[in-house]
């Protein structure tokens, strides 16, 4: 299914997420795919980016003379500082997450369950070295956790699943899943399909093992 030509590419997906971030929100973008969302945020909306390593008001990636070894993001890439930024230590930075002070975080995922469980930090394979970083804190700390991922893995398995088979990052923490083929909202009623790209509701119900609610006509 990942080969469907009309699915969104990574930049279009990032633009879609960026459009759904309300003006003035405080947002943390996880490393990898979610980082791309920043390219599509309109500075005029006043969205502020938080980075786990102790900064609110992070600007774009630094280049050339801007590069400062003391100013990096969670992915350890040199970044810049915007007016209104502030710095704080790690305990304060994670208190912001855990205390529910971030409006949105956007994370990548291996799997998301029908009840919003997230698996994104460890394959569970014995030969892989586990590394969790701030993923567990972000997943459950932000007011809303958005996931960005392809709907299907390379071997064709749906990544929205009845129950995660990968080791969990957090329980019942994901509220939205943005994929190349559709956007899924997870709430108390279940998994609602908000919109689809390149396939219809009946097709997605066939491909995903989770009961879906059709929200595409709202």
């Amino acid at each position, binding site marked *: 299914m990942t080969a469907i030509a009309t699915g969104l590419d990574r930049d279009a997906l990032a633009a879609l997420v960026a459009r759904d971030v309300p003006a003035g929100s405080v947002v943390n973008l996880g490393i990898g795919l979610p980082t791309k969302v920043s390219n599509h945020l309109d500075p005029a909306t006043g969205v502020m980016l938080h*980075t*786990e*390593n*102790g*900064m609110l008001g992070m600007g774009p990636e630094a280049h050339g003379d801007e*590069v*400062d*070894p*003391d*100013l*990096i*993001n969670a992915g*350890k890439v*040199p970044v810049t*500082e915007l007016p209104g930024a502030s*710095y*704080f*230590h*790690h*305990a304060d*930075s*994670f*208190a912001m*997450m*855990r205390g529910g002070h971030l409006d949105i975080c956007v994370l990548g995922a291996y799997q998301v369950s029908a009840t919003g*469980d997230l698996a994104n930090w*460890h394959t569970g394979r014995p030969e*892989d*070295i*586990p*590394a*969790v*970083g*701030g*993923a*567990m*804190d972000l997943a*459950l*700390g932000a007011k809303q956790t958005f996931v960005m991922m392809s709907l299907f893995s390379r071997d064709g398995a749906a990544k929205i699943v009845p129950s995660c088979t990968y*080791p*969990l*990052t*957090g*329980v019942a923490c994901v509220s939205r899943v943005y994929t190349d083929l559709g956007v899924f909202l997870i709430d108390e009623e279940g998994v609602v399909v908000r919109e689809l790209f390149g396939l219809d509701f009946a097709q997605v119900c066939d491909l995903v093992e989770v009961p879906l609610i059709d929200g595409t006509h709202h």
Partner: protein
Amino acid sequence: MAQVFQTPAEAVAGIADGATVMIGGFGSAGQPVELIEALIEGGASELTVVNNNAGNGDRGLAALIREGRVRRIVCSFPRQSDSWCFDEKYRAGEIELELVAQGNLAERIRAAGAGIGAFFTPTGYGTPLAEGKEVREIDGRHYVLEYPIRADFALVSADVADELGNLVYRKTARNFGPIMAAAATTTVVQVRRIVAVGGLDPEHIVTPCLYVNRVVRVEARTPALAGERQ
């Protein structure tokens, strides 16, 4: 209050085999590379190291691991594109890893400095990292009980110290410095500049001097280090 030393070697004197050493920094930002190099030269081994990562490239913490001095590492994010020193030791079964979610790592270090005996955190609940730990539901939310992480020594990098040991940091190099300084029996700090007492604005001091035992000035970081960052 701090004593000012002339060399990193003097500043790290007394770190014994088997000691628990907190090392500041997030990747290379805020990593006290010169103190770690002095620790390597000092010869201490069988160390337990607490750091967010497990070394980057070939310098600093990575070199300490490569030299086989670290028996056990407590960190949140060991696996990185440039963590080859750690990766090799880990796959060879020559280093023990305690993986801690980053916020729990920070809060456990903070708890040690703040005299908190244990705390209920929501982070990690229902995941493999909470296995075997006490859990509790409080006001409808699920929590895991986590304990403080203390150390014999903390090695920290700050920007400027005054002669009493009051510290200010620079940008995201602040990271774990302030909480590690409070969690260790002996806190050793390398800085780029030392100023006279009264040279730092009392409103801007991030680490008050009662947390700092030893200070040493080192030359500003070499550009090579920045170049090594991935």
